[in-house]
């Protein structure tokens, strides 16, 4: 997704001479081509993310559209106050590109996991927050937001596999429904869509009908779409490689509460700070309940607790088996 995004950024820079790319000394093998094509509009600012955002503020005030690039935590948390008092306060078109969604950086450990970036970014009323699910959607999101005059945060995951059925669709303020379903809605934040889609298949094999939607336009939030999707469903399960507070689960809770929906909500997210817990992304997804199997298992378990559904269909037996520790 990174490469696709940066290549699309090259196209944008070729058309729009205001586009600049600043990096905090990261992006090996990803940024070189941009640097070669646009040497006057590429700056490696060094390992100094606060200054990078401050520079971008001064550049944007003079008419540039600077993209500032780093690993998600370093792009969002270290310069957070600069982002707030710079691009946000001045309403300037600075694009913060945070690479690595949630646990993506696996073996690099917790300093590299972006687990609260969505929470802190969507806390800012004027920040557009975008978390693409795959490469094609990242490109579409870049294009769809090119003319926004305020700042944008892009959460760019490392996953390269396309999400089936998404087909590069993106629209600000909308979610993308990948499949309809009658028993539960799975809502995936950006690149969590891949595991969520596989979880849906596992559930289907168990006779559970799950709707599946991708939320990549976090802010503006797809409020109307969420209401429409959830108003007739008993259960929504949000799936996100992010802490439980402040991300897609919280956003969905806000929509359910403020629209007075009867839909119950389960937030599948990272519950604890993963101290001393590193590994491959798949092992981390397993450990934090974000793999397809653990998502499916959680959904089944939660549906078992849904009294109105128990009487209505016959799927509860396999879910009970799963609750006893058997594999799905």
């Amino acid at each position, binding site marked *: 997704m990174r490469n696709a995004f940066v290549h699309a950024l090259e196209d944008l820079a070729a058309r729009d001479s205001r586009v600049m790319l600043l990096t905090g000394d990261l992006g090996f093998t990803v940024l070189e081509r941009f640097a070669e094509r646009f040497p*006057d*509009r590429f*700056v490696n*600012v*060094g390992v*100094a993310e*606060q*200054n990078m*955002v*401050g*520079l*971008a*503020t*001064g*550049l*944007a*005030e*003079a*008419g*540039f559209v600077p993209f500032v690039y780093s690993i998600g935590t370093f792009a969002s948390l270290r310069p957070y*106050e*600069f982002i707030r*008092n*710079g691009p946000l*306060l*001045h309403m300037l078109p600075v694009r913060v590109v945070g690479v690595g969604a949630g646990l993506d950086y696996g073996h690099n450990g917790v300093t590299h996991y972006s687990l609260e970036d969505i929470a802190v970014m969507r806390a800012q009323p004027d920040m557009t927050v975008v978390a693409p699910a795959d490469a094609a959607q990242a490109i579409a999101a870049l294009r769809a937001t090119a003319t926004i005059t305020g700042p944008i945060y892009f959460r760019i995951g490392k996953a390269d596999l396309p999400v089936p059925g998404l087909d590069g669709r993106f629209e600000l303020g909308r979610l993308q429904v990948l499949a309809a379903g009658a028993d539960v809605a799975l809502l995936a934040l950006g690149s969590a869509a891949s595991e969520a889609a596989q979880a849906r298949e596992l559930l289907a094999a168990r006779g559970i009908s799950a709707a599946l939607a991708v939320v990549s336009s976090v802010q503006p939030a797809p409020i109307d779409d969420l209401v429409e999707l959830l108003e007739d469903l008993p259960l929504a399960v949000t799936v996100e490689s992010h802490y439980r507070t402040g991300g897609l689960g919280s956003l969905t809770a806000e929509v359910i509460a403020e629209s007075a929906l009867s839909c119950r909500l389960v937030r599948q997210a990272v519950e604890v700070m993963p101290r001393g817990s590193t590994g491959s992304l798949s092992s981390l997804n397993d450990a934090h309940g974000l793999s397809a199997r653990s998502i499916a298992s959680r959904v089944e378990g939660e549906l078992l607790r849904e009294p109105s559904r128990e009487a209505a269909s016959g799927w509860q037996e396999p879910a009970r088996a799963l609750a006893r520790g058997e594999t799905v």
Partner: protein
Amino acid sequence: MCATQADQAGLAQDVPSGGARDATVAASKALDFQGRPPAGVLSGQIRRTILEQSKRAGVGHIGSALSIADLLAVLFGGALRVPDVEDPERDRLVLSKGHAALALYAALHATGWLSSEALASFCTDGSPIATHPEHVVRGVDFSTGSLGQGLSYAVGAALAARIQNSPRRAFALLSDAECNEGATWEAAMFAAHHKLGNMIAIVDVNGQQALGYTCDVLDLSPMSERWTAFGWDAHDVDGHDLETLGQVLDGLPVSGRPQVVLARTIFGKGVSYMENTIAWHYLPMSDLQYEMALSELEDGTA
């Protein structure tokens, strides 16, 4: 507390001003600044406005504002190339020590860019004109208030000018205590590495910060050597000597290095009971104090 003001600031007393004077540019000579009051007049007006408005609003930060009155007088008296505050090719000014916003508003008012009505709204409910500057106010290029951010904005503005082949320059007015902030030095390194000769920082070296003298809180000495070690040309100047300040700012060398003017100032300058007194970082004036301050100002500017 430290022995002398210069010691507090980590500056030697009698350092000659200016650097390599052989390669100077007659900075603002070619531009038309007709109608702009001279620095000597501006400085008195700025001080008076600071006293009047802070008294009316009942707010502090008076000493910090008085400290830079002369610096702003020289900048707005001609050192800044600002034919109009909405001219995109104007020099940019970042008041990085945002807590002295009243001095900036006073300068904008004295030069006619801020109306008396707008100035009179200082610290009234709903006004954008308050104790820290907001860019939504005409003549304010950048919003500040969180120390340590302004130099980065200015360096970005200087980089933009270079990429755009514009002769405009970027000024940042910092407090000395603001150099406690690590991000200030990130920006300093960047400007030097990229040889941004159009970047001019002015440090208001008054030797004081909110809770004490800088030498007691977090020692900044030797200030000049720190900046030169970071690749800047440093110019030590008496921050209340209008003539020398003007000469230094108009004669900054074109060295390919960013320029920093270390302006030795007196906190609360012009009001005797405020000068070099920590408490006047925050205190508002009583009626009696206000009368005393005004009369001292009259005497000083008579």
